[in-house]
């Protein structure tokens, strides 16, 4: 009996060889994520711009171009992380935020701003409740809700654009509020630092803090990784989902308000396409569609990569079709790299 036990199990031994297969690159990419790509893009940018890449105006141009995407992506990260892919109601949440702000501009700039943001929170609350409490399919619910909101906004405002200076009554207070509203997307601190970019960075910092330093953030990690486990661990998943969508609603409506201010008009079409462009940034940042993996820091990198790539393509002077081609190839490559390195490390 003892002889048998002492024989080496040469045929049946199972050795985990995965670690040997892990390339150094996968390890580095998984640690640094999208920032490897950002650094590469910066190097390319420096080459094609012949030294002009790091001029203040160029950096300002990049940051300002991605400010709105960054604002929305900071909240969308929570939705994707929670395992609900994307919020298809983002376009109309942005539009509603802008419409309500403009419509209530006579109350003063700050009250109107708060009403606009609260509109987004309310939309998020509704989606969060339906998805969290009733386990509604996140895509179908938010898509349908987007249609509903579109119908409501078109019905209420007759499909027209809303101009803050026209909505504002003749009082000096209202006109001042309208002018302040227009100015928020045109304010620069120290000539080059756009207020929109600052707000985007602040929103990213706040999102990072909520995601990593709060109890909600910890619960979200478990919910995003495995909803059933979270549920049986005593986590109030409905509450977590509601908070996720409220955050997302607030960030989307805030971006919508800046968007309206930039356009100088609000309409139901403001925000069109932001659902997918922001999802692109979130995925570039390393979030998994199935949830449970990703970070706000990664999303910020994805947003910056998005901006730098567009900047470089303009520098090179590519035509529209070639731009689409290069953007598609680069985005697919980054997503593939994310998936590849995760697989190699056994994380996906």
């Amino acid at each position, binding site marked *: 009996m003892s002889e048998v036990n002492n024989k080496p199990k040469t045929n049946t031994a199972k050795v985990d060889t995965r670690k040997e297969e892990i390339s150094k690159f996968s390890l580095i990419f998984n640690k640094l994520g999208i920032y490897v790509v950002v650094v590469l893009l910066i190097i390319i940018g420096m080459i094609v*711009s012949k030294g*002009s890449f790091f*001029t203040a*105006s*160029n950096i*300002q*141009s*990049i940051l*300002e*171009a991605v*400010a*709105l995407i960054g604002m929305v992506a900071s909240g969308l990260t929570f939705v994707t992380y929670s395992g609900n892919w994307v919020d298809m109601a983002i376009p109309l949440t942005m539009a509603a935020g802008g419409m309500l702000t403009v419509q209530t501009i006579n109350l003063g700039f700050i009250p109107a701003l708060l009403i606009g943001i609260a509109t987004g929170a309310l939309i998020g609350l509704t989606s969060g409740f339906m998805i969290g409490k009733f386990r509604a399919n996140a895509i179908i619910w938010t898509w349908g809700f987007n249609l509903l909101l579109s119908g409501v906004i*078109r019905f209420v405002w*007759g*499909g*027209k*654009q809303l*101009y803050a200076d026209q909505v504002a009554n003749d009082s000096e207070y209202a006109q001042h509020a309208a002018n302040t509203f227009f100015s928020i997307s*045109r304010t*620069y601190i120290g000539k080059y630092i756009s207020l929109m970019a600052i707000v985007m960075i602040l929103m990213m910092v706040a999102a990072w803090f909520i995601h990593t330093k709060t109890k909600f953030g910890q619960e979200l990690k478990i919910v995003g990784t495995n909803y059933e486990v979270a549920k049986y661990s005593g986590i109030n998943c409905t509450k977590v989902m509601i908070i996720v969508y409220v955050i997302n609603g607030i960030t989307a409506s805030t971006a919508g308000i800046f968007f309206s201010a*930039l*356009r*100088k*008009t609000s*309409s*139901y*079409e403001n925000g069109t396409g932001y659902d997918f462009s922001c999802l692109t940034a979130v995925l570039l940042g390393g979030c998994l569609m199935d949830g449970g993996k990703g970070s706000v820091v990664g999303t910020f990198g994805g947003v910056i990569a998005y*901006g730098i790539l*567009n*900047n470089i393509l*303009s*520098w090179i*002077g590519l035509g*529209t*079709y070639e*731009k689409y081609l290069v953007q598609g190839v680069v985005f697919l490559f980054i997503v593939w790299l994310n998936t590849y390195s995760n697989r190699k490390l056994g994380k996906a």
Partner: protein
Amino acid sequence: MMKKYLAVLLSGAMLLGAVSMTGCGSSSSSGSGDAAKEETASDSGDSEEASGGGGDNLAESKDMLTSAIDSVMTTDNHKMMDAGSTFDVPEAEGTAEELDKLDDSDSAKWHFYEYLDWDEAEDAEFPASPADGQNGKHVILIVHGAHAWTTCYQEAFEQACDAVGMTVDVYDPNWDQSTQDGYVDQAINEAPDAIVVIPVSADHAAQQFKKITSAGIPAFCSNTLPEADAMNFILAYTGPNDWYQMRNLADNLGEQLGGEGGVCYITHNVGTSPYYARTFGPMSELADKYPNIKSLDYQSPGFEAAAVKQVVSDWITKYGDDLNAIVLADDSDQAIGATEACEAAGRDDIIIVAAGISKQGAELIQGGKMYGASYQSCQADAGLAVRTVSEYFNGEDIARVSYIGTDIITKDNVEDFLPCQW
């Protein structure tokens, strides 16, 4: 068991009720072209009766149209139903394939994009005008999709129809080609007196208009230029002459530049008719008239101010003082992005012109941030369509292609075009 029978009986009763209420299955709305025309004729007869007989209705219709042309105004105080203008089509300098090989800045290359140059020998048999007046006629308008511009157009169309005694139903496919195709079928089945379509896509228009004309219903195309072959099935096209107005704008820009400098272009959505007209119209015009003006680049960042701002900022950094002017396909969001990029870079010397005119564009012109814009009246676009349809019903000769009037708006005359229409 009893419940099942009851349910079947109830369903049957509901179905019968629905059929009788909607008139489905009756011979008068079988959907065939002849049946449709019979119903139309009968409807027209009713309306004639109501207005006191054919001859009287025609005279009354003409009076109403004349009165509407004189009195219906756009919100910027211009006549909404002014007569359109026509242009002679020059001889093409080659076949489409041959011209396609020419340089982008060569006007000849764009002949088949610029002109509705179709073979009239291939025209379908169009329904003859009833010549009994537009008063009491019913028109179906199928727009391309929801947009503030479309709302403005639709309201103007309804206002103009109301002024000439026509009724109108509007279908909005929300930019979806297959939905618009479905609405075309639905409109044919409803057998109106005329159908006006703003096609979602120029290269799909021929099929849509062929269906309408084959059903014996007068078909009119508005605003969006269809592909030339579609004109074989279209009684009349009315809308803006994008090429002409952009060439006009380019001439003005060339003068402002003193015949020298570098120009960049922000385009409309790639592949649409305004994309070609608003990019290659001014580009080829400047190349023809001002050989020392160089076209540096053209980009299609869409209609988002932030994206346009980034492209223009990149141009300013890349081309520096070589960039002297920018031509935009849109005077609202694109203009905001472009003017703010120039402002941020301290480049108030860059001359910006755009196709217009929106409220944002007018304000930029007033504020001296944008030099000028072309005037393209949304309401006159609708007004000309209604006028053309009315003239057809009155038995008058109508131009197969007619364009709304245009102008160049600068700081000197912008007040004449306020308040903006949408």
